[in-house]
């Protein structure tokens, strides 16, 4: 199947257009179309991973314009993994939304598909300007999804989010402009080659452009000085949207990983790894700030939003260490944390639904009708996200800590373990308040099966990741190896005479 690579972009696009064009369809039909399209995306994701697992880098030249001139979609192990991860997360979120969240506003399913299109496109593209376009696509859909259902808190959080991201987009364009002006290309592989033979007087320009890109990706990924938009936006968003947003910060992480490993790899001479020093210290700062936020949160959804920040800090620390083993560990942790925080957002919504007026605030409230089951799920999620054995968080953190070398250990170990302790304290306090300190009579309705499916689907990933730790970490190790040798991508794209249509 030569057209397989473009499917993750085209499939949600068609589904989204169909859903928007046929708005008068009954909500059941819309749900069916949305769920089927997302399930197909999971199948496509599995096929892509199977194809990329061999280590071959393939590309799809849109309109048969061969790189470096046309826009190419590039498939390697990393992008295949991210597409599959997005699809799995989205399936849980979309099924959860089918229980009623999608009917609170208009066009939920169409926007959801377009958001998926933007995310998948950002993972697959091999062109810097195209990355900007797909960022805009996913942001546009996310603006509307964040405010799905309306309400004061959402609109307020939305204003911040939109204004910040628009300013970020401007900066992205400036950075792309600077890099194009200095190197004369936008194709990432071609740019990597040209950086190797860059005249010395342009090195300053490229450094400025490269670091501006770091600011933009840092804004998306929510690194330390740029994260203040995140907790409010994620806590205000509707639950299935917040769950999908768990992948959005990872888009920023992915972009940092991709751009700085491919363009600013070892071959770039004096410009090699120019992000490393910044990312390492900022990641530790993010971890500390997120740990404080986790302890201070007085609302379960806010707590989970800060847990997303903890994961961002941990992932960035992996990038800051830079060695292939650290990248492999961060990829394993990335799979784990995306699915678990997504699941926790959904679970928080379920708990809030059964507590009546108290909602997800961490105060004394009514007892829960299905408290036993919810508490069990919460326990699983908390153990996984805090990084306790036997679930996947512990494996991810252990991999990460064993990848640290020399003086990195002295910094990473206490900060990472301390943040884990903060998360543990905050989660056990939240759990005991939610499930044990209750008064009044039972109020809530039993929850629909679709919502349970969404939560179990995502949280169930944690035991699964433990059971399959061997194959998964083999794959992430191979991915890290591939990222450490950007020459393979360059060769596949630029020196390959026979192309695909």
């Amino acid at each position, binding site marked *: 199947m030569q057209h397989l690579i473009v499917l993750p972009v085209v499939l949600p696009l068609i589904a989204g257009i169909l859903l928007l064009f046929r708005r008068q369809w009954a909500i059941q039909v819309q749900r069916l179309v949305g769920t089927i399209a997302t399930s197909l995306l999971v199948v496509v994701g599995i096929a892509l991973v199977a194809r990329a697992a061999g280590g071959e880098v393939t590309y799809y030249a849109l309109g048969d314009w061969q790189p470096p001139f046309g826009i190419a979609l590039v498939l390697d192990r990393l992008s295949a993994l991210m597409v599959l991860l997005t699809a799995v997360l989205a399936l849980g979120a979309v099924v959860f939304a089918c229980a009623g969240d999608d009917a609170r506003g208009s066009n939920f399913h169409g926007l959801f598909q377009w958001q998926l299109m933007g995310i998948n496109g950002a993972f697959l593209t091999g062109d810097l300007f195209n990355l900007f376009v797909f960022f805009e696509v996913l942001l546009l859909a996310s603006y509307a999804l964040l405010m799905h259902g309306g309400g004061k808190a959402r609109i307020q959080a939305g204003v911040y989010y939109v204004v910040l991201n628009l300013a970020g987009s401007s900066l992205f364009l400036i950075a792309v402009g600077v890099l194009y*002006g200095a190197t004369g290309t936008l194709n990432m592989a071609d740019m990597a080659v040209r950086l190797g033979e860059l005249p010395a007087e342009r090195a300053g320009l490229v450094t400025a452009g490269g670091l501006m890109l770091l600011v933009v990706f840092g804004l998306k990924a929510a690194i330390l000085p740029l994260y203040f938009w995140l907790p409010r936006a994620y806590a205000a968003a509707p639950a299935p949207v917040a769950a999908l947003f768990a992948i959005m910060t990872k888009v920023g992480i992915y972009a940092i990983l991709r751009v700085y490993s491919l363009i600013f790899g070892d071959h770039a001479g004096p410009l090699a790894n120019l992000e490393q020093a910044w990312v390492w210290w900022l990641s530790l700062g993010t971890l500390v700030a997120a740990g404080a936020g986790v302890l201070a949160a007085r609302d379960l959804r806010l707590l989970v939003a800060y847990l997303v920040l903890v994961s961002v800090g941990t992932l960035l620390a992996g990038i800051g260490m830079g060695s292939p083993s650290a990248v492999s560990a961060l990829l394993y942790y990335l799979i784990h944390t995306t699915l678990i925080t997504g699941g926790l957002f959904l679970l928080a919504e379920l708990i809030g639904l059964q507590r009546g007026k108290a909602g997800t605030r961490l105060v004394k409230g009514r007892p829960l009708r299905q408290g036993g089951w919810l508490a069990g799920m919460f326990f699983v999620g908390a153990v996984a996200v805090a990084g306790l054995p036997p679930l996947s968080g512990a494996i991810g953190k252990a991999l990460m800590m064993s990848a640290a070398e020399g003086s990195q250990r002295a910094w990473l170990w206490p900060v990472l373990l301390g943040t884990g302790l903060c998360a543990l304290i905050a989660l056990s306090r939240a759990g005991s308040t939610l499930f044990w300190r209750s008064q009044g009579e039972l109020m809530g309705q039993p929850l629909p099966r679709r919502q349970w499916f969404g939560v179990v689907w995502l949280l169930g990933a944690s035991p699964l990741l433990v059971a399959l730790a061997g194959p998964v970490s083999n794959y992430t190790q191979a991915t890290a190896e591939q990222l450490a040798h950007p020459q393979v991508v360059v060769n596949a794209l630029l020196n390959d005479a026979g192309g695909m249509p």
Partner: protein
Amino acid sequence: MESLYAITTGVLTACGLYLVLRSRTFPVVVGLTLLSYAVNLFLFSMGGLTTDGAAILDGPTDYADPLPQALVLTAIVIGFAMTAFVVILAMRARSEAGNDHVDGRQQEDGEDRP
């Protein structure tokens, strides 16, 4: 011409940045618009400024880089759509929160107390 172009872009960016940092939504929207104008101008100049050059490769020497023009076109479309969206969002926030401050609260320094 280069210096005039650079100064124009710089002044637009500075004004845009200043307005984005204001506390009311209307200046912020205007600031974002100015910022996107500045970025469009900047993108336009990134292939090098050429006067009287054909837009396509015409002969060996005298032509303007066509790629920035395509990029600017994309950026203009996206910027225009986003401005429209932000205007609607600002109006929505005004009606939901009852005032036009970006953070939804009245200013405390007494400047605009009713």
